[in-house]
């Protein structure tokens, strides 16, 4: 058997971990400020960009998409390389994924306090960001699926299935919920009206919790817990069956 030597891309993992820590602190500090606003509602009076209504979406977006999002990327980039026994498909795509995602977060941190919002919960960012997020999803999926195609391990470990499911469902949820008609640089109207919009919004909202906050971490746990414990999961068969529903 031919012996191949190759290198995992650990730099991109480190970058995502540092970003996770940074945005975790930022997002939670904003949360702390919001908690203080419950006690002292007049704390930021007179400063419109520090008002509760503008900071709350900043807090939720920072914690979900910046903190958790970067953590997902860090974990997936670390584990899928090792599970597939291959370096990520493209270093360029990895870098675009990282810097693009950080740019979106910085953009969110600027536009949300300024009051630019689509008013859809957990999808407050305006249309230019919605497009950028969709592009980043595609870049990530492309990179992941490319790596799967050039893998050296024929069997796809259960975690990989969770990563694929995360990519597909989050992309679909994001795209269909964010369908909107732009009227200016930072203003758009949803293509759905009234109760239709509410239905699509919470189809997105609830499934986003499932597929952004749950599915990727189930996959990550199937990798990191056995690794940390240095023993296999109790039943691999059950993990496959469990992926189904």
């Amino acid at each position, binding site marked *: 058997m031919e012996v191949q030597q190759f290198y995992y891309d650990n730099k991109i993992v480190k970058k995502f971990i540092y970003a996770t820590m940074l945005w975790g602190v930022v997002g939670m500090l904003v949360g702390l400020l919001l908690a203080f606003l419950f006690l002292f509602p007049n704390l930021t009076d007179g400063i419109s960009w520090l008002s509760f209504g503008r900071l709350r979406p900043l807090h939720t977006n920072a914690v979900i998409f910046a903190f958790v999002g970067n953590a997902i990327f860090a974990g997936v980039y670390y584990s899928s390389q090792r599970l597939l026994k291959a370096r990520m498909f493209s270093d360029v795509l990895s870098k675009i994924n990282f810097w693009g995602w950080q740019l979106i977060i910085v953009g969110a941190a600027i536009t949300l306090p300024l009051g630019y919002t689509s008013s859809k919960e957990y999808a407050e960012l305006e249309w230019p960001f919605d497009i950028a997020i969709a592009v980043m999803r595609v870049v990530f999926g492309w990179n992941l699926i490319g790596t799967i195609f050039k893998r050296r391990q024929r069997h*796809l470990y259960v975690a990989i299935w969770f990563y694929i499911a995360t990519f597909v469902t989050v992309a679909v949820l994001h795209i269909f919920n964010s369908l909107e008609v732009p009227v200016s640089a930072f203003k758009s109207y949803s293509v759905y009206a009234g109760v239709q919009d509410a239905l699509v919004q919470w189809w997105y909202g609830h499934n986003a919790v499932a597929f952004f906050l749950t599915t990727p971490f189930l996959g990550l746990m199937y990798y990191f817990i056995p690794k940390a414990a240095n023993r296999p999961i109790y039943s*691999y068969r059950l993990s496959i069956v469990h992926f*189904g529903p």
Partner: protein
Amino acid sequence: MSVIYILLTISIIIAIVFFFAFIMAVKNGQYDDSYTPSVRMLFDDELVKETPKKADSTKKD
């Protein structure tokens, strides 16, 4: 509420795609061995050889 038909269509299409992918994976023998993968992922064999594949049926403690 009519938008629910769009949402249902999207959801069912995705479900069918994944179901199909699963059937294909089973047919391609991905799940013929439902034990080894759980052990194999514990070995990183950095700078050593390719995956040990099987041969490792030893039970630790």
